[in-house]
């Protein structure tokens, strides 16, 4: 039995991440799920959150903004419109976006607009968390 599986994160613009990993934790629409090698085939919709993958003892974090996760035979693919690796994220900008979204959420009364603000907030939080993960990993290394 294989001990790793291939993880690919693909957006319409490029392949964001491609590595053999031992473990993947992501958030589906209806809750968190962890995938280990030899998982049975599965297709599920993802929420807006961070994904963590462990490859050769190192942990990688990326913000995933919705999308689809497909588990095949020792191969997992995440298809999403936007995915950013933790190290690529501009933390200051994400913080600004978070503050903006929070302010908007309290101001808006319209249901649709509140929903949009909530989504923006979730995106900002996911990106911040991914950036945070990348930072702690760097610290451990130095």
């Amino acid at each position, binding site marked *: 039995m294989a001990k790793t599986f291939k993880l*690919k994160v*693909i*957006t*319409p*613009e*490029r*392949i964001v991440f491609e590595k053999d990993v031992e473990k993947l934790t992501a958030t*589906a*629409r*209806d809750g968190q799920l962890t995938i280990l090698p030899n998982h*049975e*085939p*599965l*297709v*599920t*919709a993802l929420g807006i959150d961070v994904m963590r993958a462990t490859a050769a003892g190192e942990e990688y974090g990326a913000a995933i903004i919705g*999308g*689809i996760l*497909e588990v*095949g*035979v020792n191969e997992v*693919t995440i*298809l999403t*419109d936007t995915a950013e690796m933790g190290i690529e994220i501009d933390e200051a900008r994400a913080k600004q976006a978070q503050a903006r979204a929070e302010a908007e959420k309290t101001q808006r009364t319209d249901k649709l607009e509140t929903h949009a603000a909530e989504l923006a907030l979730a995106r900002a939080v996911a990106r911040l968390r991914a950036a945070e993960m990348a930072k702690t990993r760097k610290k451990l290394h130095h």
Partner: protein
Amino acid sequence: MANLKAIRQRIKSVQNTKKITSAMRLVAAAKVRRAQMRNSNARPFTSKVVEMLQQIVHEVSPIDLQDLPLLKKRPIKKVALIIISSDRGLCGGYNGNIIKQAILRIQQLQSEGKEVAVIPVGLKAAAAFKRVKIEKIKNYTQLPAIPTVEEAKMIAENVCDLYTKKQIDAVEIVGTDFVNMIRQEVKIKNYLPITLPEGKDHFPKSAETLYEPDLIELMEEELLPKYVENVLYQALLEAAASELAARMNAMSNATTNAKELIGSLTLIYNKARQGNITQELLEIVAGAEALKG
């Protein structure tokens, strides 16, 4: 002498034009390479979406899928054409070819007794259909030079919305495929309703795939919108690469023409100069002869 001056000015002006066209050629050549790269970077996503759909078609009976609005076929009364052109000219026959093909297709559909509406993308198509008596659903002009998923999403959502509301019964894309640097082909593709790929089992020997929350919801909310968006995104990318390649060729031809023109003008100029000198000599000789008496 006045003639000589005019020719000299003409040569100068052609030289200036040549400078501009060769600069434009270089710019287009650099951009087309990057556009091609974006094309190939976008391919993994497309092939994965198609793979997932193939797997689903393989595992699920068609009856379960036939109620999805984007897949459902109905009698076609009205067809919308998405016509992808460029915002800027100076790219040879690029826009002309697209518009010609689009008009042929419109005539064909009309002769079949169908209503046709157009959705021009790019200023050139918008301008071409401005004075034509035909329904325009919406113009998409001045999109960024490098197409992004956002625009594709915007157009796709709009079109899908019209389709599900039954205001249009089919959608086709008129766009240019980038074959190679020299050849770009105008293609008319069926867009909606979606034609699913043939079923194919990508994971034989493994258990049946689980779909969460459930297949229909997944198809309706994730896979099909992604597929539709991506087809359009691909079309926009192809069109962008084709436009640049067409511009590169047009500018390269223009530069060659300018070179030839400068050559023949220089020849004329030299002939005229020589003629002048000969005539002056003749006049001097004749004058000397006359003085001799």
